[in-house]
């Protein structure tokens, strides 16, 4: 499987390099589905221009990157435009290589976990068990999913700074799978420093750390368990605090906090994107604005608790599910988050057979991806449509992502049920029983 993987990887790189020569990057960097006010390269360049002139980029309302990103982007922007394109392709190469390592480590990790828990399984479930051969071609599928995924390609071409966020999240996942939970917690803190929401990913890292160091029949709420959770949480928050302190020293004051985290939380900029926030808060009465901002922001993070309780035995899948909830419900979503979800999807290809809505979901994704730029053009440039058309597409896209996430979770839980209880359930009279969700 090494040769097809390498070929698809190289094809992906060549595809990106070739597309950088066309006019696609300039067009994509203006598309609001791909770039958001937080991740736009044009805005980053504007912030750097102000910084070079001696005006603080945080004094205006155009630049919303954190100070560390300001430094990194300042370093990148010194090169010529062609070199900058090459740098972004290089970042995608790094992303692809981390994904390869993740696929590798994930396969080993799943087999190990299966080996420890196979004694709890139903004897009939042997044919549902993962085999080494199935996991050998994980690398190939993950590489194909990343190299030819239009969302990842669009993010790379548009020079969106979401690639940095994605790389750090993938590094966090990789370190978690390798067993370095503390390093994973540091990466989670770094991802949270860049775009606030990944802070909730410290929960799967904490659960994973506990599971790996569990001896005997220790329960999740034992004092030793709580101590291990607190260790991970402590590492996360301490690294986050250190990063914030360094940023303050770099900028000279705390004025970057309202521009970055205050911006993510308060949603003052209502630029259209494929999320739920913009039109909702355009048409919101001023009186209720604060209340609904709180509701929507809580909605992003609240799914951590039930998902963590339900998926406590599977922290990797919990990590992936939380990536979904962040990517769908965050205040300024873009194709960067969607691309990350699709790139990691082949890791759970053993769950596909239990999913129910794949056809509908795929159709919805295709339709929304094609329609979104058309409706935007009709509204903004042609003047023959209005904002409702684009809003409808954003709703449909969010619904497609939600269907995919919940379908995947359903399939995963169904597979677990079959592993533990076998897949033949017969009623007293010999007919097949129905497997349903019941309290």
């Amino acid at each position, binding site marked *: 499987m090494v040769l097809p993987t390498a070929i698809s990887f190289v094809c992906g790189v060549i595809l990106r390099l070739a597309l950088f020569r066309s006019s696609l990057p300039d067009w994509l960097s203006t598309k609001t589905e791909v770039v958001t006010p937080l991740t736009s390269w044009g805005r980053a360049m504007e912030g750097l221009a102000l910084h070079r002139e001696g005006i603080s980029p945080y004094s205006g*309302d155009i630049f919303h990157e954190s100070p560390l990103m300001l430094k990194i982007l300042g370093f990148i922007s010194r090169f010529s435009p062609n070199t900058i394109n090459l740098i972004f392709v290089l970042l995608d190469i790094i992303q692809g290589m981390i994904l390869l390592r993740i696929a590798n480590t994930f396969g080993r990790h799943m087999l190990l976990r299966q080996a420890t828990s196979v004694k709890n399984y139903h004897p009939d479930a042997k044919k549902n068990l993962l085999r080494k051969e199935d996991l050998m071609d994980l690398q190939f599928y993950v590489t194909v999913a990343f190299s030819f995924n239009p969302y990842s390609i669009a993010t790379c071409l548009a020079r969106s700074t979401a690639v940095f966020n994605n790389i750090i999240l993938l590094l966090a996942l990789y370190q978690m799978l390798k067993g370095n939970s503390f390093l994973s917690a540091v990466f989670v803190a770094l991802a949270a420093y860049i775009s606030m929401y990944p802070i909730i990913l410290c929960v799967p890292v904490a659960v994973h750390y506990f599971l790996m160091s569990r001896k005997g029949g220790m329960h999740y709420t034992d004092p030793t368990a709580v101590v291990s959770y607190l260790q991970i949480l402590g590492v996360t928050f301490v690294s986050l605090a250190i990063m914030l302190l360094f940023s303050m020293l770099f900028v000279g004051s705390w004025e970057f906090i309202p521009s970055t985290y205050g911006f993510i939380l308060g949603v003052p900029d*209502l630029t259209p994107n494929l999320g739920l926030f913009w039109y909702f808060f355009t048409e919101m009465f001023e009186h209720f604005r604060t209340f609904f901002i709180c509701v929507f922001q809580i909605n992003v993070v609240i799914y951590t608790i039930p998902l963590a309780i339900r998926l406590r035995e599977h922290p990797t899948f919990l990590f992936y599910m939380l990536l979904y909830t962040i990517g769908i*419900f965050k205040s300024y979503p873009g194709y960067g988050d969607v691309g990350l979800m699709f790139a990691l999807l082949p890791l759970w290809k053993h769950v596909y057979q239990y999913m129910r809505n794949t056809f509908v979901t795929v159709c919805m994704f295709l339709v929304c991806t094609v329609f979104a730029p058309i409706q935007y053009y009709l509204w903004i440039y042609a003047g023959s449509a209005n904002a409702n058309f684009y809003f409808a597409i954003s709703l449909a896209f969010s619904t497609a992502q939600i269907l995919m996430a919940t379908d995947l979770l*359903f399939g995963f*839980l*169904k597979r677990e049920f079959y592993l533990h209880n076998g*897949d033949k359930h017969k009623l007293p009279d010999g007919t097949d*029983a129905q497997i*349903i969700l019941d309290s």
Partner: protein
Amino acid sequence: MFHFQFTTVWNVSIDKPESFQHYHLFPKSLGDVLTTYKVKELHLSQTQGLWKHEKWGYPPEDAPPGDELWVWFQPHSGVDQTWADLVNALSGLFCASLNFMDSKSTVQPRWSFRPAGLASEFYSANSRFVRYSTLPREVVCTENLTPWKKLLPCGSKIGLASLLNSVKIYDGFYHSLGVHVRSVCQDTQCLTPATELKQTLTVVYDPTTNKNGKQDWSFQSMFDRTLQSQCPLADTRKIYVDVTTQETLPKFSLSPVPDFVLNQKRSGEERKIAVYQIGNHLSPSSLNLKAMYEEKLTFSNSSLPPVYANRFVTGYGLERGGVTCMIYNTMSSNTTVIFMETVPWFLRVYFSSLRIENDGKEIKPYKINFIPAKDRANPYQMELVFRLFANSVTKITYSFERAFLKWTEYPPDANHGFYVSSAVVSTVLPVASQYTATSQSVSLLEESFSDSSSSFFLRLHTETLLVSLPTPDFSMPYNVICLACTVVAIAFGSLHNLTTRDFTASDPSKRKGLVAKLKSFFKKEKESPENKPDSKEEEIPSQKDKDNSKSEEKDSKKKDGNSET
């Protein structure tokens, strides 16, 4: 063009508010406002129409379309609050919506609006005490003329102000009201300051309104009135007519004959001014100044002023655009200009796209002052100091991105667009060609006729811009909230279901179809009057069963064809 100027000089210092106690000629309402809000200098202009610099030269007082207010305050703390209170008081005094000049449109110009009156060097170099704001959308009408006339010492019944017929004035092409308060010297030694209040009204009429094609005008035809009285409180009561072209084409003659003709000499420009002392012409009948032209009006090329500017919006679509300002220098010498722009926050200006070009070559400005905007707090402020080369056009361009506003922030006619205030070009001209303003060191028009200075301060305002922003659908708040919350509910419901419930095997035959359930429900209802006590106990468990089976029914409906996996 008609320009009225009413100047009141009061020998008290505006820095001493206790001297503003006893009012004689100075209007009390304005004086109270000035002292309460610690004003040192105030300049308010209310204009309707655009002054065409290329065709008409320079006006005595240059004003942008709409309302413009700039104020220098006495040094004190809390200037922002004082400014907010001042604009509210002025909006009541002048019947204009000046209270909309809040922080969203107010800037502190660093170099462009230095004090026009007496001020110390240290004070005027600090822009902490100046505030500048414009309202380009304001309409000026009779309601603004009336309070302006009320400030005059003689009111509107006698004197030159009696000519001001609002019906005729607002028929004109351009009209501009101005109120300017500043400190001036009391005498040539300048030991004590005085306060000068200058009220100006500039009106431009279209010349070819006569039926016979000639440019004849008179007080009667322009104002529908004649001058019947003169203000006894005024020291100077004069009418000046520019008769420089009286002997050349187009030839015209004035009636009655002027008292004498002055020669106005300014560097580079000579003008002949006919002077009328009003008192000499009021008897026996009122003064109806007439000009009669000999030939019909022919349009010819007028000479261009030394510096003029044009500004316009570029680009298409509602997402982004650009602004280009062309400044023309027709003199044969270089000059330095200060270019000031105030852009509202919702047109996000990209500083990296700001470019100054002359004939294709990029010009680096001497100084740049760029203050980026904060959403809904303050506007973009840009001041550039650069050189205008002789006989050339300099182009300033920058691009912006249009923001998406909340639905309550759009004006009633949302698709009309939003106005961007004029840019201000300030320069010092070496020649006074087409320059009609009074020099800064004197108060009256007459005193600047024999001006021997060699530099003339000029301030130009460009056109205002009209920019459309993308609008949401204003009829949709309820629908949007419902639909967005529905999508959130889909996620919440599914995740809630999946995380709080476990898979179990169940018997499909134990669950009834929906129709059968309804039938059994109604059957129980029929039976209940007959055996109430028993049926009560029965109903409760059956209700529970019904609920369970109902939810099972829903789930099974969702998961059809599921048991065979």
